[in-house]
């Protein structure tokens, strides 16, 4: 292979792959699925990888949506992410207030204390694991520093 041919191959490779790369990044960027498959919680005590889909599918743990997504109770199609209502700080931030305001008037929830996200998640996970005597029990079995 002479050097001119080698150069032509390199230029061609660079041009074609640049177009493919830019197009792929621009047009086919990875989108999060409507229903999460796994969730990574990043906490001050390390990260926690939660297998969301495994908990819900029949071949997994068959946990129904309403067992965790407890609000609103009467509408399974309106599931909210935990963090929509439970802020990490436990405060009623603007985002939390906006979520609540979608269904409630301000005076309905102004006196309501909102559990912080870590307490809410700990309660959900630990209580369920204890109830079914399955799944991780120790901190270090979920939290990875």
């Amino acid at each position, binding site marked *: 292979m002479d050097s001119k041919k080698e150069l032509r191959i390199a230029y061609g490779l660079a041009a074609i792959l640049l177009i493919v790369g830019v197009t792929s990044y621009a047009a086919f960027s990875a989108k999060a699925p409507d229903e999460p498959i796994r969730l990574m919680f990043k906490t001050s005590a390390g*990260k926690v990888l939660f297998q969301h889909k495994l908990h819900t599918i029949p071949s997994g743990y068959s946990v129904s949506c309403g067992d965790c997504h407890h609000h609103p109770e009467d509408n399974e199609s309106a599931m909210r992410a935990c963090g929509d209502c439970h802020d990490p700080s436990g405060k009623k931030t603007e985002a939390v207030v906006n979520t609540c305001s979608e269904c409630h008037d301000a005076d309905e929830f102004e006196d309501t204390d909102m559990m912080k996200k870590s307490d809410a998640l700990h309660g959900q996970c630990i209580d369920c694991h204890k109830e079914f005597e399955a799944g991780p029990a120790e901190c270090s079995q979920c939290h990875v520093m």
Partner: protein
Amino acid sequence: MSNEKKFIVSHAPFWHDGSSISERSYHTMLAAMPAVLFGLIQYGIPALAVISLSISTAIIWELIINKITKLPNTIGDGNAALMGLVFGMMMPATLPWWIVATGTFIAVVIGKYIFGGIGSNAFHPVVVSITILLISWNSYFDFDNALVNYDFGFPAVFPLGALKAFGTGSIHGFSLSGLLMGQQVGAIGSTFGLGLIIGGIYLILRGFIRWEISISFLAGMFLAAMIFNMANPEKFAGPFFHILTGYSLIGAFFLATEDSSSPVNCIPMLIYGAGAGILTVLIRNIGAYVDGVLYAILIMNLVNPLLDKIRPKAIGKVA
């Protein structure tokens, strides 16, 4: 005295056998194709984006640095394209474009050109690049986090991460055959063990890489992992698990064997490979990092000139 002719040396002119750097580069890229294609099927368009941008930007950086330094245009030798491919293979499929472009810049300009270009780099340029990226943007290289939106039909945790955090109890879901067939979370081109082994064997048979380095790398890993496993099977995984996970196989066949950063004599090659394999397991088992391949290879790159001091004595003697 025997009349048998031991060694015949003719005088110039010599005939070139046709081998070239470009032949070597493109054959190495060909050898990587089984693992790359598997990664593209597994991770889809995002993986294609990373691989394509990685190869193209590596070539473009080399072209730019050639122009700036007024050196001959070397992109035709395919080395930049190869570096781009190997870099892309070691990335998670969801890596942002700007990290890909930064990474190939570090590999080509800092890893290769600052040291004097092809054949002069003391360290593997791609390994230098990825270790710098790991220090700079570590969170993007957390495979568990990067791939949360992928639905796999196998345990969806990075095997080495699970092992490090939770011990061997957490890796029972992985079968060795599954790991060999790429049923594991990881980088685009580093999970399909069988494909990497086939590529490695091809490169060894064609003489593009030295078997001494690859085999001693894997043997070093095997031995070290076996000793750890025998000492504490609850904490340390067995040797085959280590060999089939993380960057082990891509390290053995595509990283440790890089020409200018590895030894040229037989015994130094064996020491170099075994040292990198043993260090990999040491870093994984008792070090701070989940995978030790990159740091192990960098350390052995560093001692490479010293190892090459072990060489055959010159024939004849000084009067």
